[in-house]
């Protein structure tokens, strides 16, 4: 067993780094509570965020442990070509940052969430429906964060991820999993400062987390390249691909999956045109409609600041996939030369186990603190964003009388807590049906496809009609939801591929918008003509 072979010891210096980081981060987050007076301060930091703080916050939120895990898995399976989604996101961020496509009119509209914009264009019912879809896609997407984060921390620390411990409470015995207990504790810390300080706490903690996480990413990447050697890495990838090396993934009990190295440099050969074009489409939708990204646009001081944040953050996305991808490649080469993956290990967990073998005292503490930072910044940003959408777009439109500022604030805080409770239960027992990135992309597509279609139509197509908006929302969700249900039921060989689910979401959403708008306008014209005649 792999874990028995590992000498698990965190040196005192590792513990000092981790504890100092955690205390500093939570204290700074809680301290910002004093500046929260209303929902505007809580949700969009009073719209006082400047450029560099925006870059730090966006960068910190967009890199969580889950990001590191799935991007490393992409590197483990696809070599350097696994960084293709990051490259596409970089190109899209740059284009949007230079042209202001979507983000400028959105920032100038002065809204707090994307669905709020839809009310102005399509009516209250579309805002509400869009809010529901945003939450469905967003919270399901976030559902796997805790499990993957816990896996990383356990493997990098050299602990058995199935480890349990026993506690007695008032005469009742409990057997608790180590991952469940650790990640619940971490989530409680995040909830503490997010509930109290909202976006203001998120910005301050994101800044600290950006520093710790950035240092961890750079140091670990240099260390991996130093250990493996760049030319060895390139040669090893090519040999693994051409000789058809197979590693056995036994991470899911009772199943064995073969992992082979796809073309490690050419994305088209590795994934095919269907997947690459779907990723390009998903990337433009993510950078213009992903609520956690857009939250920084809406919190920016003005539209020019928002554009600058996009341009400055664009190349960050290459490293977001490329650097952890290198860690995954290092893991593949390491375990290949070790004779294969140990029992119970898979393509997701190989990377942290590999890092454990190359990081010494101090560095291990830095990397764990960096990954805690990554996890906390992502969780806090996502919790706040989805809670704001639930209040702003699902609850608020149903109220006859607006809530008092105090009740509004209380409601948003309560929503943050409820999402946290959901995450603990859903996030810690859900079993991934396939690659982590595909799960995230497909659940994200539940709302990405429909909201992107709505947003572009609302801002740039005067002929868009609310019937088209409703049709786009409903049809856009069908592909990804079908993917999730079918792939959870049927055998692997009969499963729907992620690119088919993803493209069908965009295709159906576009078709729904166009056909629905044409029909809606025709019916509206008919009605108004009838009214005039009568």
């Amino acid at each position: 067993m792999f874990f028995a072979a590992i000498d698990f010891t965190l040196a005192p210096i590792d513990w000092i780094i981790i504890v100092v980081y955690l205390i500093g981060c939570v204290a700074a987050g809680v301290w910002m509570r004093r500046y929260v007076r209303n929902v505007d301060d809580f949700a969009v930091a009073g719209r006082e965020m400047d450029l560099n703080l925006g870059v730090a916050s966006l960068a910190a939120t967009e890199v969580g442990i889950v990001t590191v895990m799935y991007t490393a898995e992409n590197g483990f399976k696809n070599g350097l070509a696994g960084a293709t989604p990051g490259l596409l996101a970089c190109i899209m961020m740059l284009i949007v940052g230079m042209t202001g496509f979507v983000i400028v009119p959105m920032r100038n509209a002065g809204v707090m969430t994307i669905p709020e914009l839809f009310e102005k264009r399509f009516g209250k019912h579309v805002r509400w429906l869009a809010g529901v879809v945003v939450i469905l896609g967003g919270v399901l997407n976030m559902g796997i964060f805790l499990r993957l984060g816990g896996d990383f921390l356990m493997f990098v620390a050299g602990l058995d991820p199935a480890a349990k411990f026993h506690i007695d409470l008032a005469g009742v015995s409990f057997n608790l999993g180590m991952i469940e207990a650790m990640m619940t504790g971490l989530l409680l810390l995040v909830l503490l400062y997010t509930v109290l300080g909202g976006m203001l706490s998120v910005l301050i903690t994101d800044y600290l987390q950006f520093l710790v996480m950035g240092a961890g990413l750079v140091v670990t990447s240099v260390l991996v390249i130093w250990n493996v050697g760049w030319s060895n890495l390139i040669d090893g990838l090519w040999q693994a691909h051409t000789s058809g090396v197979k590693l056995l993934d036994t991470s899911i009990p009772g199943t064995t999956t073969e992992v082979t190295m796809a073309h490690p440099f050419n994305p088209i050969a590795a994934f095919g045109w269907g997947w690459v074009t779907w990723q390009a489409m998903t990337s433009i939708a993510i950078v213009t409609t992903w609520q956690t990204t857009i939250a920084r646009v809406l919190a920016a001081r003005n539209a020019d600041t928002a554009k600058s944040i996009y341009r400055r953050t664009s190349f960050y996305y290459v490293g977001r996939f490329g650097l952890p991808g290198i860690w995954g490649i290092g893991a593949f080469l390491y375990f290949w030369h070790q004779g294969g993956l140990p029992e119970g290990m898979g393509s997701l967990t190989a990377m942290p186990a590999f890092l454990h073998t190359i990081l010494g005292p101090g560095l291990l503490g830095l990397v764990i603190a960096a990954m805690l930072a990554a996890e906390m910044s992502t969780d806090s940003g996502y919790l706040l964003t989805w809670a704001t959408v639930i209040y702003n777009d699902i609850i608020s439109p149903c109220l006859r009388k607006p809530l008092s500022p105090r009740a509004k604030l209380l409601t948003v805080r309560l929503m943050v807590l409820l999402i946290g409770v959901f995450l603990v239960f859903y996030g810690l027992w859900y079993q991934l049906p396939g690659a982590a990135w595909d799960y995230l992309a497909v659940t994200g597509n539940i709302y990405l496809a429909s909201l992107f279609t709505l947003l572009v139509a609302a801002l740039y197509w005067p002929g868009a009609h609310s019937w088209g908006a409703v049709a786009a929302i409903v049809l856009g969700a069908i592909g990804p939801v079908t993917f999730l249900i079918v792939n959870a039921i049927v055998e692997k060989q009969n499963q729907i591929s992620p690119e088919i689910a993803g493209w069908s979401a965009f295709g159906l959403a576009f078709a729904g918008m166009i056909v629905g708008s044409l029909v809606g306008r025709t019916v509206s014209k008919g009605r108004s003509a009838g009214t005039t005649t009568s």
Partner: protein
Amino acid sequence: MLDRFLIAFWTVMVFGSIAWYGYLLFHVGIKGGWDIARMIRVLSGQGGENQSPGPKGQ
């Protein structure tokens, strides 16, 4: 030929990312700190301008 180009391309991307992350760490690290100081000043000032209660503890 294509593979050689792609290897060179990904090499530039990976080392460029490391350099860019290192640069951002210092640049955004310093300037982001100033942004926080300015934001806190403005948020503290708002309390006085609006005659609403200031931050707790003030």
